[in-house]
């Protein structure tokens, strides 16, 4: 295998949290991690420091394909489908003010 260089990007992961039983998983943000196991651990530490969740999903950002606002791709610059442009912080989990 090839030795990774320090210039190589640590993969980006999108994080989805189920705040409470009965609710669906909601996108809360993203993070960097070398693999899925660490991504899950990091997500727990970063996005549920205040017990905001009962379940976490992590998805490689590269696995997500995003649509354009009007499906007219010509309107968007060539970098438009880059994964790092995936929106973060769609939803702020409830109860973050309570430690």
């Amino acid at each position: 295998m090839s030795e990774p260089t320090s210039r190589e990007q640590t993969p980006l992961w999108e994080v989805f949290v189920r705040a409470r039983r009965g609710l669906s998983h909601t996108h809360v943000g993203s993070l960097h991690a070398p693999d899925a196991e660490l991504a899950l651990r990091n997500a727990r530490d970063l996005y549920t420091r205040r017990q905001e969740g009962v379940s976490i999903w992590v998805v490689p950002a590269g696995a997500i394909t995003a649509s354009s606002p009007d499906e007219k791709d010509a309107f968007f610059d060539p970098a438009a489908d880059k994964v790092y442009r995936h929106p973060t912080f769609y939803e702020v989990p409830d109860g973050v003010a309570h430690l």
Partner: protein
Amino acid sequence: MYGNDFSAPADAADDTPGGGLLGEVEAAEAELRAAAARERRGGPAPDEDLAAYFDDVVGAEQKIEPRDWMPEAYRRTLIRQIAQHAHSEIIGMQPEGNWISRAPSLKRKAILLAKVQDEAGHGLYLYAAAETLGISRDELVQLLLDGRQKYSSIFNYPTLGWADVGAIGWLVDGAAIVNQVPLCRCSYGPYARAMIRVCKEESFHQRQGYEILHTLAHGTPAQKAMAQDAVDRWWYPSLAMFGPPDGDSTHSAQSMAWKIKRFSNDDLRQRFVDMCVGQAEVLGLRIPDEDLRWNEERQAYDYTQPDYDELMRVISGNGPCNRERMAHRRAAHADGAWVREAAAAYAAKRTEQKEKVAA
């Protein structure tokens, strides 16, 4: 176990910082949801001018989202601002982190550790928001390490005593919140949402700082002197956090038009001073400004401006701790390189194994 076992001093309840501002954060969040609910259009019409479309969305108080067309200067301004904000959170861990090992009670140690940890979290939220604009975190971190992007100058001052942790919470976090609350209404969606989350978490920071100072100011004479000394040293640098006076501020007008920024530097500074006066009285500490007095006509306090020449010196790299802060960050990054490489190598081996099994 996050050390939530503290409360604001009872007699300061009404003056406890953050209260009214937290309401504004919630209002911004409600506004964001309302704007989303009344969204009337997806993308631009086929023959519509993109710049006009952008102006229309911003003008209607709708959020710009990552895949929308945006002026290149808007994108660059946001990247710079969000990145510098993220860098500030990360570098800002150092002055307070300096007192974790010596915190004078286990309760204070737990609260301070949780607070500094939150700052790392805020840095990461903000880097993630910046990444939606088409730049990677590695690039941004490199810009910081190379000294090509700045962080808030306030963190180039030293924390010389325990009371500095209180003064940072009260004044520095207080000024940061006054600055940040309007950003919850920023036209760029990911930044606005990140700021809502950050501001909600930061209200705890300011309260813990205020409580430290309140306890010290009502403690032994030596403790009270320690608290006053910290306020004396942190007051003017905190005022300088709002940036140069409006007349000298280069980016303000365009940022206001784009609704990245909502109030001028001087307006925010005035708001901060007006908030602090009453809070200082409850603390029983003196704000180190002989000319601080109520102006009936303006319905605001007159106050002495910070030394902007000093601010410029610190920004240009010649504050008391600029070199140490950067050296510390670079060392952590360099010392961790072999760990990051190991994790990447391990992940690559696992992927390879999986592929072999699959084949």
